[in-house]
């Protein structure tokens, strides 16, 4: 069945870069300090103060832009974006207008469950700008006082604008997840949506199929979404709303009543609502900031940034699939946990020599544990070397999978090595010759079972396994079965 319309979504993501100080002054960027304690004449726009560019911010922005496959111009400049608002102390925001730090890149997204084909999402541009302060409106007792906190004013933001290449809310969510993952791997942002270090605005409209070809509906910018799930839901809601509206009114983009509008997402009502246009005109009167020199980005700088990127999620997934023999789904699960977990996995897999087993055990033994406790791999009590030792014992048949799990639980609870945990559980390694002697004795004592097996009833061997475990609790049932069958066959 073909849809009656195609959804076009483009995302604007603002990420706060992990610099120690603000974009144009030395103030701290730490979150959560008392209001207006992290300010200075520069970031509160005192008369006479001047901005000085934070090199680290440029470096982090450059890392991101290169990782997003962007074109980096030889030099980039700063522009003033002018508007009046109480949280904007200079009356303009220092941003980048017509010569951004980077443009024309892409980010590949794919769904391991195959909900959509993997694709490259175009990145229109990624540029640096300073954040504004925060307005807190206090509308108590008939007064409408506002308080302004300028701690955030001047914090470095990287604005990453995508092309309208996303075709579904699910793709939009996937793009955000992949972008966040990438930023984490690059170490450029902590992407904490709750603290506002990652913010998403979305532009969405439909191309409705008609006899005259596809017709675009008016573009809506959706704001106030504070989780990726909220983005997905808001976009689904908006697509349906626009489709309904098209069917009722049939207004196309650019026609009277078809101009771009802004809507907010109401999490409580699970609906978007029309936001009053901030200012009638959006003429920001951009012009180059005369207080700042253009930043020169020589080829060598860009190349050295490229060389220092390290292995990024896409490449890492490919390496796990081909080099460690795990499925794309499993590779995705591991890589999405972040580099630290992947490093743990790699250490375990390399030491035990079996990527698949390592992957299964880590998903069940580690990820579940981390998930239950909402923590990260550095809090996991078993070092990779010990985890690998456990898997080796399992792979060598010295432990059954279920016994192995018990051992792992002991290792976690008591911080023990494999040896110590096995001892505590009374597990001893059973040597092959000893096991064979035991099996021989059991066969001699149970001629009926031998006869049944010889008559083709292999299952009969099962009762011998139970008896073997009584004699020696460490006996591996699989081995006992194998040895008994072998001995019977040789009788």
């Amino acid at each position, binding site marked *: 069945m073909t849809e009656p319309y195609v959804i076009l979504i483009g995302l604007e993501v603002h990420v706060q870069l992990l610099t120690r100080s603000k974009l144009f002054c030395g103030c701290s960027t730490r979150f959560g300090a008392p209001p207006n304690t992290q300010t200075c*004449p520069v970031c*509160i*726009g*005192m*008369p*006479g*103060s*001047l*901005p*000085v*560019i934070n090199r680290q911010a440029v470096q982090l922005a450059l890392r991101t832009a290169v990782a997003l496959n962007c074109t980096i111009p030889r030099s980039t400049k700063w522009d*003033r974006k*002018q508007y*009046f608002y*109480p949280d904007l*102390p*200079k*009356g*303009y925001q220092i941003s980048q207008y017509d010569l951004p730090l980077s443009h024309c890149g892409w980010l590949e997204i794919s769904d391991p469950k195959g909900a959509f084909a993997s694709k490259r999402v175009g990145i229109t541009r990624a540029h640096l700008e300073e954040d504004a302060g925060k307005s807190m409106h206090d509308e108590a007792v008939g007064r*409408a006082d506002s308080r*302004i906190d300028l701690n955030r004013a001047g914090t470095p933001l990287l604005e990453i604008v995508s092309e309208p290449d996303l075709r579904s809310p699910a793709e939009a969510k996937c793009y955000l997840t992949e972008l966040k993952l990438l930023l984490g791997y690059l170490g450029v942002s902590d992407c904490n949506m709750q603290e506002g270090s990652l913010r998403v605005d979305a532009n969405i409209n439909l191309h409705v199929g008609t006899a005259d070809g596809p017709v675009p509906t008016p573009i809506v910018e959706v704001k106030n979404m504070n989780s990726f799930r909220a983005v997905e839901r808001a976009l689904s809601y908006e697509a349906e709303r626009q489709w309904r509206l098209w069917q009722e009114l049939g207004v196309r983009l650019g026609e009277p009543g078809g101009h771009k509008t802004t809507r907010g997402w109401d999490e409580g009502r699970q609906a978007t609502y029309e936001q009053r246009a901030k200012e009638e005109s959006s*003429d920001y*009167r*951009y*012009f180059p900031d*005369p*207080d*700042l*020199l253009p930043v020169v980005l020589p080829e060598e700088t860009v190349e050295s940034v490229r060389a220092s990127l390290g292995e990024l999620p896409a490449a890492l997934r490919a390496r796990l699939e081909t080099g460690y023999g795990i499925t794309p789904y499993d590779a995705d699960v591991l890589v999405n946990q972040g580099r630290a977990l992947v490093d743990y996995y790699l250490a375990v897999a390399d030491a035990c020599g079996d990527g698949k087993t390592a992957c299964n055990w880590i998903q069940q033994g580690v990820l579940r544990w981390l998930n239950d406790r909402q923590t990260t791999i550095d809090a996991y009590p078993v070092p990779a070397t010990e985890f690998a030792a456990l898997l080796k014992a399992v792979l060598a048949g010295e432990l059954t999978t279920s016994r192995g799990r018990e051992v792992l639980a002991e290792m976690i609870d008591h911080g023990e090595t494999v040896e110590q945990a096995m001892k505590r559980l009374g597990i001893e390694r059973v040597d092959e010759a000893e096991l064979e002697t035991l099996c021989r004795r059991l066969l001699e004592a149970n001629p009926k079972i031998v006869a049944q097996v010889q008559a083709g009833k292999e299952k009969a061997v099962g009762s011998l396994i139970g008896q073997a475990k009584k004699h020696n609790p460490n006996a591996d049932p699989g081995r006992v079965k194998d040895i008994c069958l072998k001995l019977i066959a040789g009788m």
Partner: protein
Amino acid sequence: MISLLDHTATILLRQLQAGALSAVELAQAYMDQIDRCDGTVKAFLHIHADSVLEQAERIDRKRAAGQPVGRLAGLPVAVKDLLCQEGQLTTCASHMLGNFHPPYDATAIRKLKEADAVLLGRTNLDEFAMGGSTENSAFQKTTNPWDPQRIPGGSSGGSAACVAARMAPLAVGTDTGGSIRCPAALCGVTGLKPSYGRVSRFGLVAFASSLDQIGPIAQTAEDCALLLEVLAGHDPNDSTSVNRPVPAYSLAVRRPLVGLRLGLVREHFGEGLDGEVEQAVREAIRVYESLGATVAEVSLPHSRYAVATYYIIASCEASANLARYDGAHYGYRTKEPAMLDELKHQRKQLHEAGDSAGLEALDSALIRMYRCSRSEGFGLEVKRRVMLGTYALSAGYYDAYYLKALKVRRLIHRDFQEAFKGVDLIVGPVTPTPAYKLGEKADDPLAMYLFDLYTASTNLAGLPGIAVPCGFSTGRLPIGLHLQAPPFEDERLLRAATMFQQATDWHTAAP
């Protein structure tokens, strides 16, 4: 006998160093002179009356104790009220900042303090440095010490007038399109606009960031060299300040230039130039010739666009730089209860009239607060330029005005590069006429703007320029000679000016 106050800063400094004069004596002499003269001249907006003698005493004690002292130790300096000084009222001659006490020192102020200068007080200016007569001050009109009926020039009118009236041996001004050189010329003192980037702008309240530069005003070029030496230098807080070593200007200044080649700008000796000014300038050029200089005519073909280009660029930058004065964070804010009452009244009227379009268009309280604070806090000239700049940067006009102006600016710059291929300095008049009467051009901003005809292009090209006294009109009004050098040849300029001052005595005349 020559009075203490007629000495140059260089000589006073020597006397202070020799112990022949104490900083307290000197400061007291200037405070007395301020008492005598400033009632008429009105050069100062505020005088640091309670701290001047204290500062001087501290320096005398240091010197007496044999402690190392700064480069200007004990020399009084007056500062244009446009540079932030920690804890001191810094008004920019605007009601907008009528009660503004900055929490920090401008780099230039810090350097003056480190040099052990005695900060005398803050001098008057055109509001936010916008104007050429100092008549646009929100607080007072400074008069020309040579004729109290006339303007001192501007915008650093207070700084130039206080040096001319011997109320300070040294003063700091700022120059965006001629604001140091024009008042220096009209008041008969020496004023240097350094190369762009030579002096840090950090803490200088911005008018037009790409043009503003802080510079010295004094009796002689030698004194200017002394003050520039203290002010100049790279500042990590100002990205546009240049990281080049600061020459020992005050040591170099007395070394004459051999084989000096002067360029006379053809376009600057045409229509609009007062005959007496032209005569004085031509006479000054003959002095140079008598000192061995050669003179050639040069052309700056785009100089006739300089004023228009300057007013577009400066106004565009100003419109953004002054956006921060919105009443929200500091400075003037409209009386809110009255404002809210009026808004309520208007809403009620519109409501009763059933005027829904009017209601829709009515300001929010925030917008009305901005509107009232800015229209009440700024003076007429400032508002004119903010409007001009806002217009020129608006969608649809940007290319025709701002972008075009940037292109012409580049052409003007190239004109100078071409001209400096054949000459060492460019010489001409500073202003088209001597000082005009107070109020004479108040209703004709265009005539006032044209007063920047010879000086604005220096800023557009980032060059250093100096105004040197070179004669008097028949009405005994000072006339200034304008010298310009290639970027960062400030030393050449100071040496050339000193050559002239060693051969003439225009700079020694006092009103």
